[in-house]
């Protein structure tokens, strides 16, 4: 999305301001479009601690983290509603730390819209422009343009109290964008909306952002926002940046345990056993599970039996590592299947949780699988049309007994898939995932 926007800017003949700046700064590291350095703030119990942030022009950055972690406070400090105790904020190379909000050219859109109730939709949007543009005809044209882009043209002469949540949010977005801010801050703008409205609004916003070529910082709790819109993600906890990077990288390799836990990634602890061809074989010991942050779940030095995982990442034998597997990357099947996926584990459904339009399935894996080609499960052999895998390594785990390993794995599927599989508590299923989706974290 970022590259696309940069291309568009160039197509329009607008040389990227970021590129200009880079030229100015010369050989030294160019200052980012938005740069936050060592920001410290303490407001009413909420703290920001040593926040460092670099956002390039045209970036769409999602800021995620648990409630009370300081995400909104960060936005409100960037826009100038709070003065930091220490640290500096640079926008387009200019130190704006001491600037009042009216001098920063940054817009903010809140979850609860904050539309002026005494103004119509038109007046709300026009108000944002009136300070900069005096020509009434131009104001009207600009308002009509953004209204058409955000599909609120028929609502222009209505008061905010007569609008639905989605309509209010589109008005708030129009008001924030119409001034062509250097930076648009979105504070959970879609949180109060239903799933369908959210999806529609994401598409509308994406289009509008592209049209207005704005850099965006978007605080959200919804990972769908992140996947649909962001090209970078920033994870915050207790006022500290825990991790940042491209969404895929952060989700695949959440660095601290907290990030993995927060992102809902399966985080397991294991030991590299050996290398088999291009794959690393990892041994997960019983009770060595997942929530690695919990000390009582630390790996025991001598395990009785183990589960084997295959990863496409490299690892040194004997090395103790964490494994990250995204729940969306796990396929559930009633029977053992022949496929290209290297990992197939049997487990019992422990918990089924419906989350909006998806179902989260928590599986308790059974222990005792062996990395042995001949050890293809009876269930797999019994399944019609089953062929033994051609590759020299084991793909199917054999369960010498049905004892639960204590290792849990979360998978996410659609309600339809859940229905087709007839999933219920205690049902045995196979969890199948590719070695490429097992990420080793050190």
């Amino acid at each position: 999305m970022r590259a696309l926007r940069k291309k568009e800017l160039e197509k329009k003949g607008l040389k990227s301001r970021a590129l200009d700046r880079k030229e100015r700064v010369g050989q030294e590291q160019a200052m980012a479009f938005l740069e936050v350095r060592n920001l410290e703030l303490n407001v009413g119990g909420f703290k920001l601690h040593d926040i460092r942030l670099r956002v390039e022009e045209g970036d769409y950055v999602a800021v995620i983290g648990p409630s009370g972690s300081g995400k909104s406070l960060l936005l409100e400090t960037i826009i100038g509603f709070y003065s930091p105790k220490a640290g500096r904020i640079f926008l387009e190379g200019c130190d704006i730390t001491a600037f009042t909000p009216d001098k920063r050219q940054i817009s903010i859109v809140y979850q609860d819209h904050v539309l002026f109730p005494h103004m119509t939709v038109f007046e709300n949007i026009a108000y944002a422009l009136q300070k900069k543009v005096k020509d009434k005809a131009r104001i009207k044209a600009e308002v009509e343009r953004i209204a058409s882009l955000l599909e609120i043209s028929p609502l222009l002469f209505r008061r905010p109290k007569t609008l639905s949540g989605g309509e209010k949010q589109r008005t708030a977005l129009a008001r924030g964008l119409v001034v062509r801010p250097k930076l648009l801050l979105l504070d959970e703008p879609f949180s109060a909306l239903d799933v369908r409205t959210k999806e529609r609004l994401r598409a509308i916003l994406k289009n509008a952002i592209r049209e207005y070529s704005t850099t965006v910082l978007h605080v959200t709790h919804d990972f769908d926002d992140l996947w649909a819109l962001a090209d970078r993600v920033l994870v915050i906890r207790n006022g500290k940046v825990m991790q940042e990077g491209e969404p895929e990288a952060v989700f695949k390799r959440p660095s601290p345990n907290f990030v993995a836990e927060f992102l809902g990634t399966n985080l397991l602890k294991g030991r590299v056993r050996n290398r088999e061809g291009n794959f690393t074989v990892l041994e997960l010991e019983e009770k060595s599970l997942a929530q690695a942050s919990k000390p009582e779940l630390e790996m025991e030095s001598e395990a009785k039996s183990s589960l084997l995982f295959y990863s496409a990442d490299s690892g040194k034998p004997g090395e103790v590592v964490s494994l990250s597997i995204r729940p969306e990357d796990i396929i559930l099947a009633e029977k053992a299947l022949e496929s290209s996926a290297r990992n197939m584990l049997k487990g019992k459904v422990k918990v089924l949780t419906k989350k909006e339009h998806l179902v989260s399935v928590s599986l308790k894996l059974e222990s005792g699988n062996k990395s042995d080609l001949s050890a293809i499960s009876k269930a797999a052999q019994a399944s019609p049309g089953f062929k033994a895998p051609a590759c020299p390594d084991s793909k199917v785990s054999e369960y010498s007994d049905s004892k639960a390993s204590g290792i849990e794995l979360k998978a996410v599927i659609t309600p339809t898939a859940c229905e087709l599989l007839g999933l219920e508590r205690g049902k045995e299923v196979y969890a199948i995932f590719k070695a490429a989706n097992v990420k080793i974290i050190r």
Partner: protein
Amino acid sequence: MKQSAFRKGATGIACFFTCLLFLAVGTLLLILKPSELLKALLSAEMLYSMKLSLLTASISTLAVMFFSIPTAYSLSRFDFSGKSLVRSILGLPMAFPELVLGLSLLLLFGQTPLGSGLEALGLRVPFSKLGIGVAQFFVAFPYAVRVIYSTFEGIDCRYEQVSRSFGYGDFETFRNVTLPMARGGLFASAVITFARCIGAFGAVLILAGGSYMYTEVLPVTLYLNISYGNLEMAITSGVLLMGIAFLAILCFEHFEGEKS
């Protein structure tokens, strides 16, 4: 559903005192014949008193609103040293008797350089019509600040912050966003202020004196006529004051209801 004894008791107390108040008000309204009421209303003294009351209360209300809006806004939005002290001092006149307030004002404008300075400028406060306005101002000001303060507190600061992010300064934001959003509360406050001003008695009596047909406002008319034993005039001024108070409360409730 069976009602608890507590619920019954509380409702009973509320009903009993409402009835008592209604009876008291009703007595005031019913004791005079309409012709007697009209005669008293059209008397020169009552007309003078009404005119002076309306004039002084209107001017005082304007002055109170003019000064209480920035006062309440600064207390609501800005942090400054001694803020809690300012808040406490502003609230004091609500707690102590109007007579004491009147005495304090009399001493301030009569015995201090402030009073003599104003007198040198031709502004005599004690025992003058100006004194009526000053007394009304100080009686109503703390109430107005309290009502307007709660109105501003009810407006989310983020409306102002959003406005500021569009390039508007503090004052422009206050004028374009805060004041229109506080309109209902400000109107309610003006109504209450007007009622407080027109009904101010103790402070007015001490600072402006109760001079017949000079500093005679409606409460003073009631007081003077009760002293003379002229019950008709006293009751008529009481009815007028009650009518004004009733209208004020109606307006206040209307705007409070709108706000909620």
